[in-house]
């Protein structure tokens, strides 16, 4: 991509608005226009972020949150894709479990926190109890939808080529169901981060989630905002990474990007 196109791609008005809000916030706090006791100026938040990074607190916190995101998401992917395929391929399995899924799906993740605490105390296991079930649903439902939504004509193609069951699944259904699976994986990854943070807020005093709560209770809003910004940035990075990965793996995914 040449330089001019890159410059044209940057959303200048959007960047300007962000910068303006940052500056206005800074000015309002400095001049005493916004006189909340707990509203730090952006520069103070940046200094707080630097302080956390220097003291070596931020690194391990980020690592802990990322590890629990990775475990929860990986487990949900394995379970969700295999169960989704099972349900997508067998109408009987669908008939006898869809309502159970509909009952379990709206279960809020936080509600499992007290159960996890009861069983495992403050630990990574509690975090997993909170994370896995809600993260599972988007992958499972999208995989199932992808598999059932494979066009009849593609099945006919498989039959024409006399493909066996295994080849039909691997060569016809899996590629055709890939885009919705990737969408589900992306939604799940975002959810995994949210739930890891939630779990750390209530279930496991470690990581970024606990950092937010700890600094709130310590009345250090600058550090609290530094943690929140960190979580937001990680969310953006994970989402962008997932999109890049999907585009690298699936050339056809680029057409599907027009998402909300």
């Amino acid at each position, binding site marked *: 991509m040449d330089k001019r196109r890159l410059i044209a791609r940057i959303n200048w008005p959007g960047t300007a608005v962000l910068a303006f809000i940052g500056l206005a916030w800074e000015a309002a706090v400095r001049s005493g226009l916004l006189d909340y006791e707990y509203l730090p100026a952006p520069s103070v938040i940046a200094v707080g972020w630097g302080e956390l990074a220097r003291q070596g607190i931020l690194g391990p916190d980020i690592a802990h949150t990322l590890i629990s995101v990775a475990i929860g998401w990986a487990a949900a992917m394995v379970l969700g894709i295999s169960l989704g395929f099972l349900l997508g391929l067998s109408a009987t399995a669908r008939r006898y479990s869809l309502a159970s899924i509909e009952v379990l799906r709206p279960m809020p993740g936080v509600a499992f926190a*007290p159960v996890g605490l009861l069983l495992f105390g403050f630990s990574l296991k509690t975090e997993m109890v909170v994370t896995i079930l809600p993260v599972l649903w988007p992958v499972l439902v999208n995989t199932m939808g992808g598999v059932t939504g494979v066009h009849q004509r593609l099945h006919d193609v498989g039959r024409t080529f006399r493909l066996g069951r295994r080849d039909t699944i691997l060569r016809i259904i899996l590629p055709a169901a890939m885009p919705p699976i990737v969408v589900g994986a992306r939604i799940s990854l975002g959810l995994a981060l949210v739930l890891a943070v939630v779990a750390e807020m*209530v279930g496991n005093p470690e990581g970024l989630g606990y950092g937010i709560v700890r600094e709130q209770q310590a009345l250090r809003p600058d550090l609290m905002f530094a943690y929140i910004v960190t979580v937001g940035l990680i*969310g953006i990075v994970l989402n962008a990474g997932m999109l890049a990965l999907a585009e690298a793996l699936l050339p056809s995914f680029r057409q599907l990007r027009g998402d909300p």
Partner: protein
Amino acid sequence: MRSTGPWQQYFKLSVAALPSARGLLPLVVLLGVWQLLQTDKSPYFPPPSDWWNGLMLLSKSGRLYPALSATTMTLLLGLVLAIAVGTGVGLFVGVFPRLRRAIGPLLEFLRAIPPPAIVPVAILFLGYDERMKLTVVVLAAIWPILLNTSSAAERVHPLLLDVARSFRLSAVDRMRLIILPSVVPAILLGIRVALPVAIVVTLLVEILTSIEGIGALMIGAQRNFQSPQVYGLLVLIGLFGLLVNSIFAVFEAILLRRWPPKTQSENF
């Protein structure tokens, strides 16, 4: 013309919106096995019959109903406010492309911040009260509604806008007759996404702050090692979520009966 009355039609639509009941079998079997395998009283895995007793105990002590109504009130009020503000701002942003481009990155960043992270901020600014709870729910539930509305308003078919121009519709009529009807399905989709978020955030606030509600009751039961109550409340919350979602599914089916059916891409 039609032999069935509107209510019969609504009922049919409602039934079609809900899954078939025999799919509940795995869940029933699981709970039954749990009940039967429980030979001695385990402090961690009490049998389902104990869950019921735990809930009855809570209800007799008179704490269950106030908590349930507090949670329901917060959720409903929060959703109504989020829908009103989200739809309004979303339409406005979607109709004016320049505005959308200007505040797009800001919205994207705000959306990237996990809703639960707002909770400690709100506690710090607003203190421990009902108002804070409501603010957090609105702030968390507004994004899916706002973003869905704005992207749908932006993607209204150009032909429809040409129709508005041909008929020389005023700005108000254009909004009322052309744009609003074409974004209703997207608004409903946004609300569908916002519902579980609102429930989660309501419970999280209650768990973190022990402000009256089901979440507070649950974390209290856990601290007292009342495991039957914890499981009982978990089931109650599950049923609550199911009820809220089902009511919304029925409402959506009735409201959307005149719209063209969903396409595959919307139906994720």
